Structures are given as structure tokens and as C-alpha cells.
């Protein structure tokens, strides 16, 4: 264990940039987790956040109940 820690200390000195990147990754994961944010596949990007009322269009390809509403 002690030998491993010694190796680790040496690795940190040899690769400070990579160690910094790893710290950044850990911090990013923590912040994302705290904020409930998903890195990929978040539909919030495409969600319409302006409107609170009912949708004005809909249906399969805009074709609803026999009428093209689009």
C-alpha cells in the first residue's frame, strides 16, 4: 500500500496535467449530480419552455382527425 502511494505521488508529479483533468472530471460529475443535469440525452434542450397553455398543433405529422392542422 505504501509502495502504491509512493508510486502515486511520483505519478502525480510526472503527470500534473492529467491529474488536473481527472480532478476536473470528478468535479464536473459532482456538480452535474448535484444539479440533476444529464450530459447527454436531455430533452430539455428541445422542450418548449415558454408556453404554459395547451398545444396549438398536434397529431400524427400534423394530421389529426382527418384535418391537416399544420
Amino acid at each position, binding site marked *: 500500500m505504501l509502495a502504491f502511494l509512493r508510486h502515486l505521488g511520483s505519478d502525480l508529479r510526472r503527470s500534473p496535467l*492529467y491529474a488536473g483533468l*481527472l480532478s476536473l472530471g*470528478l468535479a464536473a460529475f459532482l456538480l452535474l449530480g448535484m*444539479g440533476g443535469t444529464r450530459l447527454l440525452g436531455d*430533452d*430539455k434542450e428541445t*422542450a418548449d*419552455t415558454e408556453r404554459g397553455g*395547451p398545444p396549438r398543433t398536434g397529431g400524427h405529422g400534423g394530421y389529426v382527425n382527418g384535418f391537416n392542422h399544420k
Partner: protein
Amino acid sequence: MSSVPIAPPPAWVTCPKCATQVPCYEPARSKCFGCFNCRTLFEANPATPTNKGRIIKGFRKENVTGPSLPLGITGALGSYYCRITGYQVRTEQQDRIAEWREYQLRPAEPIVGGDSIDFPLQLAEYQGHWLLIKQARSHPVTKGNHSFQGKEWTSQSTGNTYQLWHRYQPVIRDAQGEFDWNIIEDERLKVQEFTCPPYLLSSEQAPKANSVWYQAEYLEPDQVATAFGVNANTLPSRVGTGAAQPNPHDTAPAWRLFGVAALLLSLLAGWLAITRPSATTTETFTIPAVPAAPAPGAGLLTAPPTVDTLGRAVVPAAGAATPSAPAAATPAASTGYSQMLVSKSIVLTHSSAVDITFTALDLTNHWVEITANLVNEETGRGYEVTRSLEYYEGVEDGESWSEGNRSANVVISGLPPGRYHLNIYPSPEAGTSDTMLLVLLEQHSSFVSNFLIILVLMSAVPLWHWMRHSSFETSRWENSDFAPASD
């Protein structure tokens, strides 16, 4: 190390072919000489220089360029203070293209109290890659004059594992200087080489004789230049990868750091999962059927739905957002949905994400489009998304088929804490029966995808090191007939 001037030799021998005086630094030991003028190998006795020597072989002068380290030069290689006394160019019987140079090293001054067992030493150079060769102290042991047949050997004393690199019989192409044996006899040797960078273990076996083992250690060209005080630019340029050249791409440090970071990442993920619990609600709604082919002007309904400021329907007496009685607004032809449904509320106690899954349980051979609005009941802010569910199946030519999906998923992340509900505006296909819609709302604070993405990003550096390491090893083993199946 500064260069040492080439000292005059204590003796000379005369070439029997061209009468050139060949220097001899070790008259007590040397018996075979290579003339640098006519490239003749001959036997002579330095103690009686007047006696004419015996020609052993003449080499072709046009084939060789001469040594890059001058004969007679001295230098300090590690703990060895030595002099270059002989030079050979060798190739293989089976492959006359590859050729390398070997420099005979003898002590430059009498050894006092030192370990003389390492002499004679040799320097070997192939395509700019240098090896210092000495007697091996640890090597495979075989019975009698049997040669070692293994492809791998591990030294008990050092733990180093050597892998078979090459097997060949040497051919001497050129020789200059002095030697204490008839070097042409080496053409009968069968040589095996085993590599474990920076070391190379080599066995030489004459017919019906025991193997003699040598161990070589890789030297950087700068080490050789420094040792002999010559300009490194005068030495042959390095080409390719040497058999015993240490791999400069050490992957262990990056993997160690990555391992520790991956462990910390897992601990963080566990901590987030424990300290930020998730909530889940499930609800089932019935989407009423829409009559087929409505008459023009007689749409489903003409009145728009009654909605509150949050976009929620003014619900029937059962009350808004009650778990057992989903709200149902009046359908509206002008807005394109058949009926508005309101889900139970879900309370987010901390910033998190909501994963919404719509499943139309009995959807077969038709479609339904779901527009949903996740509304923050305190701020009125809504997040509207649309998903289409469609599922078709049938039998064609005796084979059943299906396409589409009865489920669709939405993730809205980074939501501030608060009380939320879902307004659902389903638009079913006309002329179909009622559809059961299952809505699952799950709160998430930490995502497996985040964990995996960051893990993959963090592994990029060690993977890059590993690729360079592997590429180096591939380049090394390109020169061997015994490349391992995998690195």
C-alpha cells in the same frame, strides 16, 4: 566523458597480403587480425612480427563502410574502462540483407580488484541501436549440449521474462583490428536471442558443444557517444525499433491515476445515490377513442378547453391532480388533441431530473401522439415535449412482423426544486378504440450515463498511452519471426 587520445599500440603485425602494419593492443592474447587496408583476415603472432601470417579469408571491400567508432579509442561504459580493439560486420546466413556491427572491447588498463569476468565485452550496433554485451550471469540451463528450445524464459534471480526474438547463423562480412579467436569459426554457431527490454539474452552454440550465454543491455546512442567522446552525429542514425530498446511509453502511471480517479468517481456516484433519493409515480389514463371521418364543420368540439394559468384543465368535481381521478378537459379540434389529462404531482426536494415514460399498453396497428407539459406549480414554468407512439404488427407470407414501439421516453434534467405535474394532450388516431396510457415519472439525481461519459473521457489519456505503447511494441516485433500473438 571526454575523449581519450588514441594511444600508440604496443605491437604491430604485418598483413601477409598487402604488408600493411596492423596495430595490436593486446599482443599476449590476440591471434587473429583484420587488415583495414586490404580487408584480409589473417593469423599472426605479435611476439614474432617478422614471421609472415597465414591468410584466413579476404573480405570484399566494396560491401562495407568501416567502423563508426575508431579502433584503439578508449571510453568508460558504466564501470568498464575499455578500448575498442576489433570490429566486425556480420549478417545472417538466411538473410544477407540485415547486417550489424560488433566492436570488440578489452580493458583499457589493467583491472585491479575489479570483476574481470565481464570481459571480453562487445558493443553491437544495428540500424543505430546499440547493445553492450557481456557474459550472462543468469540464463536457461540445459542438459549437456542440448540447446534451449523454449520460446520464453524467466530469470529466477531478476524475475525478468525473456521472449524468443531470433534464431540465426552468423556470416562474417568484414573484420578489422585484433581478436583472440578465429572469428570465422563463429559462422558455425547457432544463435538464439531472447528479448526483455532493455536486455537481450543470447546463446551461441557450436556443433556438439554447450551453449554459451551472453546478456546485452540497450544503450542510447548518446550514451555511446558520451562514453567514447565522439559526436553523436557521427554515429549511425536510429532506424525503426531496437530488439531491446526500452518502450518510452510507460502506461502504468496513467493507469494508476485513472484507477484512483475511477474509484473516487464510483464513491461520488454512491454518495449522490444515497444522499439524493429519488421519487417515482405511476399513473394510468384512458385516452378516449376519436370517431372516424368527422363531418366537415362538425369537428370533435368547437369550444376550446378551459385551462388555468398553469395550462391545467379546469377539472371536474373529482379535483385537480388527484391520483385516482385524472383530470379530463374538453377536447378541442382547434388545438388538435382529444382530451387533456393531468398527472399527480411530484415533489422535487432538490435540483434533479425527471424521466417520463409513456406506454400505450394496448396500442396495436395505430398511433397516438402525446404532447406533455411538465409544469412547475410554483413558478408556472412549463417544459413541453412531444412523443409519438405507434405500433404495427401483422402476418405476411406466413411470417409475423411488427414495427414501432408502444413506449417512449423523455428526460428533462436540471429542474429546480419544486412541485411539478404533467399536463398530457393525447392525439389518438381517428377511428380507433380507447387506449390505455401508462405514465411513469421518475426523479433522478445522478445518471449512469454521466458516470460512463466521464469515465470514458478520463480514460482517454491512459488509452492514448496504451496505443502508443502497443504501436511501439508492434514496430519492435515487426523485425522478429517470433512475434507474440498479442501484446
